[in-house]
C-alpha cells in the first residue's frame, strides 16, 4: 500500500467500524471524556500497589511485576532499595531459580560428550541448544535475581553467540554461565572472559586462526560490535586486532579442548587505535589481556555501551546528555557496571520513560506466565510447558539468543512492532488466558480464582484484575474495552457461576494482556 493512499483506507475502515458498532446496538463514543462518563472505574483494592515510580523501576528490571515480587520490593523498603539489594545477586537466596537447571540434564555435559552425542546421532546439538534456551526462559520466569537475569540477557546479547546448534553449541552453556557471572561486575573482565571463551573463538573463527593466516572475523567484530564501534577503526586496526588474538585455540573436531598455542601466535609490533605493543613473546596472552583492557576502557566503548544500556532500559532515543553521563560514570569506575546502572535508574530521563520500552518476544511469553501465575512444572515430555514455551517465543518472533548474527537482537521497539509479532502476541495471550495450550506439566489458575468475591460488580473485577496483571488501577478505557470484549455492563454482578466465569474468562484476561500497559515493560 503506498503512503499516499493510506489515508483513504483508514478513513473507510473507521467508517465501517463505527457502522458495525452502531449495528450491534452500542453507541460509539469518540471522546475520552464520554468514555469516562459511561465507564467510571471502580476501585477494588484488596492488595496494595507499589507507587507508579516504584512499579516502573521494578518492571523495567524484571520479567513482570507479580504480587509476590511487589511484596518483596515493599519488604526491602521500596524499589530503589530493592534494586540496590538485587545488585549483589550472590546474597539472594534463589532456590527456585537454581533448581531449573536440573530439568535439562544435558546442560551439565562437557563438550566432548555433547559432541559424541551429536556426531553419533544420539542427540543433535540444536536440541541441546533448545534446552539451553528453555532454561534461560525458566530462570527469567522463576529466579528471584531478576536484575541479574535482565543484565545477563543484556550482555549475552551484546556478545551474541547464536544458539543455533553449530559447533559452538558445545561451549554455549558455559559461555552463558561466564557472562552471567560477570553481568554485574566489570566490563573489562567480562570482555576478556567472553572474547577468549571457546564458544566465541569457534563462532567467529578465531579457533582456527594462525600467524600464517590470521582470521579477521573475531578481530573485526570485537572492534565493530563488542567495543569501540563502527567508524572508529581502520582496516589496518582489524588486521592487528586479528594478529593479537592468534593463539587462542580450540582443537576442532577432535578433543574440542581449548588451549593457548604459542606456535600459532603472530608476534611482532601491533597497533590498534591508540594501543601499541612490541608483542615479542610467542605467548600472546598478556598482550591480549592488555589489548582487551585498552578497548574496554576506551571512551568510544564507554559511549557505545552507555548508548546501548540507555536504549535497552530507558528509551529508543536517549538524550546525548544521559549517554555522556553514563559513559563518564563507566570510565570513572574502571568499567564497573553497577554504578552505571545506578546512575541510569536515578536519572530523570529514566523516571520519565514509563511505558516507553516494549517487551521482546521471549520477554512477552515470560511475563505472560508470570502475571497469570502459571505454575511451570518439571518437564517430562516434549509437550511439557517448560519445553513448549520456547515455541511460543518462536511464534512471536524470536527465541532467546537465537538472533543469527553477531550483532545481537535489536533493542529498539520498531523491531518488535511488526504485524507478525503483534498478531502472534495476541494469539499467545489468548491461548494462555484460556489455559488451552500448553497443557502438560503446567498449572493454570482456575477462572474462579480470578474472582475474589462471588457477586462482585464487573467494574470492580476489572479493577482487581488490572492490579493483579498490570500492577496498576483500572482506567475508564480499560473498563470500556473489558465491557466490549465480554459484552457485559460495568454494574453486572459476577458470581462464581456467572457465564463469564464459566465460559469467557479468557476473553477478559486476554484484554488485559493485550493492553498497551502489558506490551510495555
Amino acid at each position: 500500500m503506498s503512503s499516499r493512499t493510506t489515508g483513504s483506507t483508514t478513513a473507510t475502515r473507521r467508517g465501517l467500524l463505527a457502522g458495525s458498532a452502531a449495528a450491534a446496538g452500542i453507541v460509539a463514543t469518540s471522546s475520552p471524556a464520554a468514555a469516562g462518563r459511561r465507564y467510571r472505574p471502580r476501585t477494588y483494592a484488596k492488595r496494595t500497589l507499589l507507587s507508579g515510580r516504584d512499579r516502573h523501576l521494578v518492571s523495567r528490571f524484571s520479567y513482570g511485576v507479580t504480587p509476590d515480587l511487589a511484596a518483596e520490593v515493599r519488604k526491602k523498603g521500596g524499589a530503589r532499595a530493592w534494586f540496590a539489594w538485587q545488585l549483589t545477586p550472590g546474597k539472594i537466596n534463589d532456590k527456585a531459580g537454581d533448581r531449573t537447571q536440573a530439568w535439562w540434564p544435558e546442560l551439565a555435559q562437557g563438550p566432548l560428550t555433547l559432541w559424541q552425542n551429536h556426531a553419533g546421532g544420539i542427540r543433535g546439538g540444536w536440541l541441546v541448544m533448545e534446552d539451553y534456551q528453555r532454561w534461560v526462559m525458566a530462570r527469567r520466569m522463576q529466579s528471584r535475581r531478576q536484575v541479574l537475569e535482565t543484565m545477563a540477557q543484556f550482555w549475552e546479547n551484546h556478545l551474541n553467540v547464536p544458539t543455533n546448534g553449530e559447533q559452538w553449541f558445545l561451549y554455549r552453556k558455559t559461555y552463558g554461565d561466564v557472562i552471567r557471572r560477570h553481568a554485574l561486575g566489570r566490563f573489562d573482565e567480562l570482555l576478556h572472559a567472553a572474547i577468549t571463551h571457546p564458544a566465541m573463538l569457534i563462532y567467529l573463527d578465531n579457533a582456527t586462526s594462525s600467524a600464517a593466516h590470521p582470521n579477521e572475523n573475531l578481530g573485526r567484530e570485537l572492534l565493530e560490535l563488542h567495543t569501540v564501534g563502527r567508524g572508529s577503526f581502520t582496516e589496518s586496526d582489524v588486521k592487528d586486532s586479528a594478529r593479537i588474538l592468534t593463539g587462542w585455540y580450540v582443537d576442532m573436531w577432535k578433543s574440542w579442548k581449548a588451549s593457548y598455542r604459542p606456535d600459532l601466535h603472530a608476534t611482532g609490533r601491533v597497533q590498534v587505535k591508540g594501543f601499541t605493543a612490541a608483542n615479542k613473546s610467542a605467548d600472546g596472552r598478556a598482550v591480549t589481556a592488555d589489548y582487551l583492557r585498552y578497548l574496554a576502557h576506551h571512551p568510544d566503548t564507554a559511549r557505545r555501551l552507555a548508548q546501548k544500556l540507555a536504549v535497552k532500559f530507558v528509551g529508543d532515543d536517549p538524550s546525548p546528555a544521559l549517554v555522556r553521563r553514563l559513559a563518564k560514570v563507566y570510565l570513572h569506575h574502571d568499567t564497573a557496571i553497577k554504578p552505571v546502572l545506578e546512575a541510569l535508574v536515578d536519572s530523570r530521563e529514566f523516571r520519565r520513560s514509563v511505558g516507553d520500552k516494549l517487551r521482546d518476544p521471549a520477554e512477552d511469553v515470560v511475563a505472560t506466565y508470570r502475571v497469570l501465575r502459571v505454575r511451570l512444572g518439571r518437564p517430562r515430555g516434549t509437550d511439557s510447558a517448560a519445553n513448549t514455551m520456547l515455541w511460543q517465543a518462536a511464534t512471536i518472533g524470536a527465541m532467546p539468543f537465537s538472533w543469527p548474527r553477531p550483532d545481537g537482537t535489536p533493542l529498539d521497539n520498531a523491531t518488535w512492532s511488526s504485524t507478525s509479532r503483534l498478531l502472534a502476541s495476541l494469539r499467545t495471550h489468548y491461548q494462555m488466558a484460556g489455559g488451552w495450550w500448553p497443557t502438560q506439566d503446567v498449572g493454570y489458575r482456575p477462572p474462579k480464582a480470578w474472582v475474589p468475591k462471588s457477586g462482585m460488580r464487573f467494574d470492580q473485577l476489572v479493577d482487581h484484575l488490572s492490579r493483579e496483571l498490570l500492577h496498576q488501577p483500572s482506567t475508564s478505557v480499560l473498563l470500556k474495552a473489558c465491557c466490549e470484549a465480554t459484552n457485559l455492563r460495568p454494574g453486572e454482578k459476577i458470581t462464581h457461576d456467572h457465564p463469564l466465569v464459566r465460559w469467557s474468562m479468557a476473553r477478559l484476561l486476554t484484554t488485559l494482556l493485550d493492553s498497551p500497559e502489558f506490551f510495555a515493560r
Partner: protein
Amino acid sequence: MDHENQPGCCAEFSAVARTSRRAFLGGALAAGVATTIGSAVIQTAAAAAGTPARGVVVVLSMRGAADGLSLVVPHGDPVYALARPRLAVPSDRLVAKDGFFGLHPALSPLLPLWNAGRMAAVHATGLPVRNRSHFSAMEELEDASPGSTTRSGWLNRLIGSDAIASPLQALQMGGTAPAALYGSAPFLTTRSISEVGIAGADKWDTYGGRNRSLHTMWDKRQTRLAGSMRAAFGAVADFAPVVASPSTPANGAAYPSGDLAKALSEVARIVRSDVGVEVVTVDHGDWDMHADLGTTEWGAMKRNAEQLSGALAAFFTDLGALGDTVTVVCLSEFGRRVAENANWGLDHGYGNAMLLLGAGVRGGYHGTWPGLTNDPDADLLVTTDYRSVLAEVVSSRFGASIPTVFPGFSPTRVGVMLGQ
C-alpha cells in the same frame, strides 16, 4: 486451537478491504499506469508508461545446502561420473538433456515449463568466498553485502527501496523470517494464511467485541507502538480477501503432500487475491544430505526433488495465466562436494545451481562451467556470483536499484532474465 483463528472474524473487514482495494486500483489506472496482478496497488508514480509492471518474486530457499550437481547434472564433464561411482545420476536417466547438462529425473514434472522456455538453471553460482557453515553462509547469502557495514537482508533492502510501507509487501511463509528479510522495512511472517487474523475474533465472538475492545485500547494512543498495532489491524483487514479466498486450487492443479506444496498453494491464493504482496519467501528443507542422498531409485535426493518439482509444477498450474507475473528463484546457502563420501552422501561444498521459473525467465542452461576436479576435497568452483543472478531478477522484475539492494557489488551479465 485452529478454530481460534477462523477467518470468519474478519468478514466485516473483508468488504472494506475489497472496496478500498478497488479504490486504489482506480487511482492507479486513472494515472495511466498499466498494471497487472500484484502490482496494481504498489506501482504508482514511479511507473511511467512502458515500464514493466511489478509482480511477485518468490524466493524458495532449499535449506541445508542442496546438491546442485544432482539436480542439474553436468553429464558432459567426465569427472562427474568418476567422482560419484554410486551417486552419479546416470546420463540416460536425465531429462531436458543437452550435450552437457541434464535435469534429475525427479524434476520431470517441471518439463512442461522447461520446454516452454519458462525455466532456467544457472550453474556454478555461489558466494564470492567459500563458507561451509550453513548458518553463516545463509547469513552471508541473505545479507548479500559481505564485508559491508550494512546489516540488513537483500530482500529487506529491496522492499525498503520504494515508498511502500505496508507489511504485506513481503511475506514469509513458515516459521521464522530468513535473514534476507531482516531490516527496517516491515514484512509479515506467518505459518499459514489462516493465522493472519486476530485471535479471539471468531464465530463465538457474537457481538464483535474482540475487535472493538482492541480498537478502544489502541486507537487513541499516540505512541509508535499504537501506530504499529493499528497497522497490524489494517494488515489483517487488507489480508482478509486472502483468508476468505477459496482454498481449492484452480485449473485442476493437484499439489502433492508436504509442507512445501502446502506453502506454495497458499502463495498461489495470495497472488490470486491481489493484496499487494510482492516478495514471498518460502523455506524448504532438509537438503543437508551427508548420508543416504541415494540414487534415482531411492534416498533423500529423489524424495526432496520430487517434493520440489511436484509442488512447483502444481503452483504454476494453479496460477494459470497469473504465472506470467510470478518469478520463482530457488537457491541454497552453498553446494556440496564433487566426490561422494562413504555414507551414500556428500559433504559441504561450495558452488551450486540456481533454478529460476516463471515470469521474465530466459529458459535453458546458463553460467560458465569451471570443470570438475576429482579429489576428496574438491568443490564445484564458483564462476557466477549468485548476486549477479539476483540482480537480474530484481532489476528486470522491479526495476530496483542494484547499488541499493546489493551495496558495493557490480554484477556481471548472466542473461538469465529477458531484457538483461
